[in-house]
């Protein structure tokens, strides 16, 4: 379980999170929504300790991580897998080396076992036999899938997905959404946090939806609660209209 207690994050004079109270249940897929600049990526970076709150507390699995030291954060981050918006694969490493990276760093597995594990995970994301390729030889969709393989290769407890389907064609988007669901189903204890703009598909895979607006939670609940909400901000966001109560900066 992940909990934000009155978390405020200020960059310069810009208040991105404003006393945010957030609850992300264990073993579920939680979708975080909000327009650009609402602090969705900032929120997941707080969960991993890549950013620290200006005020407030962040708890992960009941443990207050707010004041962790660098060493404690290093240990804390071993629980996570993260798929970045642009996959963030290491250009200088082959696909196989990218996927093996967490194994090489945090396990004592031999090279043969690491290669076998990497190949298995690459097969799961529909990309067998590409270990020797380099990221620049991959399409955007393939990069995302390799990024997903790298995120789940070391059996994390929590997987964070930062806009996993942005810029994908509908088929690859559906494939990635299905993979997120499969990964979650395979491990019932796995907590998944997804940031997405692909509303329809994201609502199909989510167990829990949180919408951020003005640095706070505008709505938290099931996808059905989101779909049937009468809140004008939610309606406007769902309809994708510029006219409405939602402020644009």
């Amino acid at each position, binding site marked *: 379980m992940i909990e934000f207690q009155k978390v405020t994050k200020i960059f310069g004079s810009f208040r991105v999170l404003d006393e945010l109270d957030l609850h992300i249940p264990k073993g579920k897929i939680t979708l975080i929504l909000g327009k650009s600049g609402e602090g969705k990526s900032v929120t997941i*970076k707080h969960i991993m300790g890549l950013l620290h709150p200006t005020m407030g507390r962040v708890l992960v699995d009941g443990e207050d991580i707010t004041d962790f030291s660098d060493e404690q954060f*290093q240990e804390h*981050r071993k629980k996570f897998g*993260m798929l*970045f918006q642009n996959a963030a694969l*290491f250009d200088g490493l082959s696909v196989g080396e990218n996927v093996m990276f967490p194994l090489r*760093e945090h396990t004592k597995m031999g090279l043969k076992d690491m290669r076998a594990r990497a190949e298995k995970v690459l097969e799961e994301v529909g990309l067998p036999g590409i270990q020797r390729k380099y990221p620049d030889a991959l399409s955007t969709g393939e990069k995302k899938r390799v990024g997903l393989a790298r995120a789940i290769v070391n059996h994390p407890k929590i997987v964070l997905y930062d806009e996993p389907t942005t810029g994908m064609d509908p088929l690859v988007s559906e494939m990635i959404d299905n993979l997120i669901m499969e990964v979650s189903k395979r491990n019932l204890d796995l907590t998944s946090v997804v940031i997405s703009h692909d509303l329809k598909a994201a609502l199909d895979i989510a167990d829990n939806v949180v919408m951020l607006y003005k640095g706070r939670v505008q709505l938290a609940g099931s996808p059905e609660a989101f779909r049937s909400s009468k809140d004008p901000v939610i309606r406007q966001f769902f309809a994708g209209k510029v006219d409405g109560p939602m402020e644009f900066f």
Partner: protein
Amino acid sequence: MAVTRSIQNLMIQSITGLGHVVTDLIEGLGEFLIFVGKVLRLIVRRPFRVRLLFQQMQFIGYESTFIILLCGFFIGAAVSLQVGTIFTIFGAQSMLGAANAKALARELSPLMAGFLIAGRAGAAITAEISTMKVNEQIDAMEAMAVDPISYLVVPRFLAALIMLPLLVALFNLTGQAASLMIALNIFDIDQGIFFDKMARIVSWKDVWSGLQKAIVFGGIIALLACRYGLTASGGAKGVGRATTNSVVMMLLALLSVDFIITYLQIVWK
């Protein structure tokens, strides 16, 4: 009255501006020292990334060999021509080899090799790390519980410390070989006299003083190149800015540190 107020405002703005510059400098220096402290701490801490160290030694050292040889040869030849021409006026051309060797060992080799490595390897290091930074690869590394300083900076720092003295030694050697060619073919100096004078005047202490500089320069190049890379921001433009700033700062740092080391070597002789 209005003019007095304008002058007062201008003075206040100037003092405030100067204050900002000074505090930014102190802040930047403080952050850099913290960074250096972290690098030094992580050198002796596991995991030791031997594979990455060898990769960087190959990149910084082995792959720079050709330009070091080429530059060493031409610098040695040019300096010998200049020195030989001047020494001929005083009838002291037999001192050519010794003068060239001393200049190369103490000053020219470490400084020129430092410049070359800053321009070739230092710039490449900053460009690579800053590209990783703006493409979220550094964030990804941190997200996978891998310290970027341990993974990226420590191997480059150690590789530069090891390889710079070796490259400087190579620079000395080719520079002196070029000097010998000039002495024999242009100034008609006897080979025996060339080496005899060199052996009398140039000591191992001279060579060692150049190698000391090389070790320090290696550290400076790696630390500045990595630091500018890790603090880059703002897409492709940010990468370009970080690389330019890094190279300028490396060259300035090498020149100023060279002066300080030379001064200390002379004072503590």
